[in-house]
């Protein structure tokens, strides 16, 4: 197994563990953190590919992904705060009536 393959396998493992956390955990904040873990796995694969063939374009793209992830968390946390303010719980099961 060469190094790129190892890094991609690690990124697959992180992505799948994050997805598992988003599906099985009940705490909204923990689900958000598991989503961050998924983003980290994807960024790892991006870096692995960029370090192989890309140049500064790969690093610039990774930087932009970081900023977008920061913006995403800046929106997601107020939404969680709003939900908690309404129902006084972080348990995602209490919001089952939001399903379409």
């Amino acid at each position: 197994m060469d190094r790129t393959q190892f890094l991609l396998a690690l990124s697959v493992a992180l992505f799948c563990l994050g997805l598992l956390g988003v599906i099985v955990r009940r705490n909204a904040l923990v689900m958000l953190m598991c989503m961050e873990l998924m983003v980290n796995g994807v960024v790892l694969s991006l870096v692995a590919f960029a370090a192989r063939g890309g140049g500064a374009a790969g690093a610039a793209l990774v930087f932009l992904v970081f900023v977008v992830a920061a913006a995403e968390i800046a929106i997601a946390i107020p939404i969680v705060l709003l939900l908690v303010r309404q129902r006084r719980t972080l348990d995602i099961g209490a919001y089952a009536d939001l399903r379409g």
Partner: protein
Amino acid sequence: MTETLWLYAFSAAAVAGALVMLIARHPMRVAVALIGTMLSLAGIYAVLGVHVIAVFQVLIYVGAVMVFMVFVIMMLDTRDTSFVARYSHLLLPGLLVAALLAAALGAVLAHRIGVAPRWGAGGDFRLQPFSVAFLRDYWLQFELTSVLLVIAVVAAIAVIKGRGGRDG
């Protein structure tokens, strides 16, 4: 050789942190495990020679995003029903989906990827070439990023001050 050992050590630490995230009961422990995973990833990037990205990982993810997350965990009362029962009724389907996805992606990975490796380069990843390229070739994307951040701030304020915020 030492480099490869560090790579394996950081990878093991990253996966261990991700596993602790699935098991830990208190959100603060999950946050600490995630910080450990992110720092291990930064170590991996440093071992690979992409120091710019390692610094970004520590500054932006651990320094900004996770500090924000830790403040929110401290602010909210986390000992509710999701503290008593960690897992939802989707535990078995979730395990199945994750195992299937891992198997599918692993099957793809089993084939070798046909691009000539260029490891240990670091050339374009050193700070100076990156900065020059970033502000000369990608200045438009950089400016659009600042617009995105302003939109995110305005949207966050709008969400908090919206319909549900009057009782708070």
